[in-house]
């Protein structure tokens, strides 16, 4: 694989010191459907727009929010197939961690591991960077909730609240005004839905969005449409 004609990296520096492939990857992310996350005192919520290109697409078979460990999950904006590869790889890696240390991989370790894979794809021969930014919601080893963003370059950031994909600028402004340090998970879920609705094209229903939460002493779960509907009803 890395031995023949493609043993050189396709991501090379420009004269001005930029890695253009990574910049272009970030463009692909900015074209993706909005995803956002909020870290509350007692949990984390991530949510994304699941709007499908046509009414003929069966939304039940599309899943954007995925559980990686019992205590952490991913969401993304960007190129879907690239996301699937990372999900599979991160799941395998966190299982290795469990086999080695007898404990669930803490979210910070999961993030650095995933980020390090994404960085590898900006330097290894013959591959291109992943066209996605990830939002990682999870609990650390002492049970504290955390929200991270991982970019195609492999940089990662811890956030109190953030948004990626289309309309991320206005979504982040909206979140900046609404996030408070003593926010609870229930408030955070409401705020997340309101923020998502701000930039939503058309009507937002429980079937064209996805929400994932992890509570402080609980496990990561993707909410069912009927649960999302309850929150939407309350918001109305």
């Amino acid at each position: 694989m890395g031995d023949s004609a493609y043993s050189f990296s396709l991501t090379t520096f420009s004269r001005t010191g930029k890695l253009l492939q990574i910049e272009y990857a970030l463009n692909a992310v900015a074209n993706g459907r909005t995803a956002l996350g909020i870290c509350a005192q007692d949990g984390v919520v991530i949510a994304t727009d699941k709007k499908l290109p046509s009414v003929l697409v069966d939304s039940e078979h599309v899943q954007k929010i995925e559980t990686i460990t019992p205590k952490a999950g991913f969401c993304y904006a960007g190129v879907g197939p690239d996301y699937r590869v990372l999900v599979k790889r991160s799941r395998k890696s966190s299982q290795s961690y469990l086999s080695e240390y007898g404990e669930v991989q803490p979210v910070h370790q999961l993030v650095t591991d995933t980020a390090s894979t994404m960085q590898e794809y900006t330097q290894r021969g013959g591959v291109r960077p992943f066209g996605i930014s990830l939002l990682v919601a999870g609990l650390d080893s002492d049970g504290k909730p955390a929200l991270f963003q991982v970019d195609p370059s492999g940089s990662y950031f811890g956030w109190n609240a953030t948004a990626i994909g289309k309309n991320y600028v206005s979504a982040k402004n909206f979140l900046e005004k609404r996030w408070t340090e003593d926010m609870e998970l229930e408030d955070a879920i409401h705020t997340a839905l309101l923020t998502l609705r701000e930039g939503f094209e058309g009507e937002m229903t429980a079937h064209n969005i996805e929400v994932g939460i992890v509570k402080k002493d609980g496990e990561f779960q993707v909410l069912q449409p009927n649960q999302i509907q309850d929150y939407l009803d309350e918001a109305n």
Partner: protein
Amino acid sequence: MGTLMASTEASVEATSKPIEHRFSPYDFNGGTVAAVAGPDYVVVAADTRLSSGYEIKSRHVTKLHALTNQCILASAGCKTDVDQLRSVLDIRGKMYQHNHRKPMQTPSVAQMLSVTLYGKRFFPYYAFNVLAGMDAAGVGAVYSYDAIGSFERTGYSAAGSGQAYVIPFLDNVIGNRNRLEEKPVLAAQEVVELLKDAFLSAGERDIYTGDQVEIMVVTKDGIQTQTFALKAD
């Protein structure tokens, strides 16, 4: 004439099978280790004699190794394999600490030791381990291992050449086996005295156990060490 014939026949018998000389990578350096878990402490003890064959190589070599300040690895077997195993665990422990910014908890050390041992399933570490430490809830934990990583959390354990003398004693006194009275809750100091008795008995009958016993008591505040003299015979 007749006796000459007989001796020739006998020497043909002796040389008819090939004699193989092989280098053995293992040596048994002897000694006994034991550990007992309590509600908020764990006591580990090990003798300090290092032997090879019928020789004593040293009377002052420790079998106890603190991997964190809450977790001790006690090992008997082949000293060089024990040293290497400790080295590998120390390195992995440091890497964990760099990544996590905190030391490994005892249950994680237990799992990691198992995985490390199984990693050499087909050329094992000749080390018979007992891991003792404080678990995440502040309760004493003892884990017993075989040479290839099979492990189990137990209330007490012993390994090494004197294992067979120590375990039945602990079964009776700590495990309350074959006793009619209710099982008492023991304080750390009482357990220390019991382990001293156990090692005295083991030292009497096991030629590889003796000289000195090193006893470490682990609590949430750290590790305290004491020594106890045994017979030097």
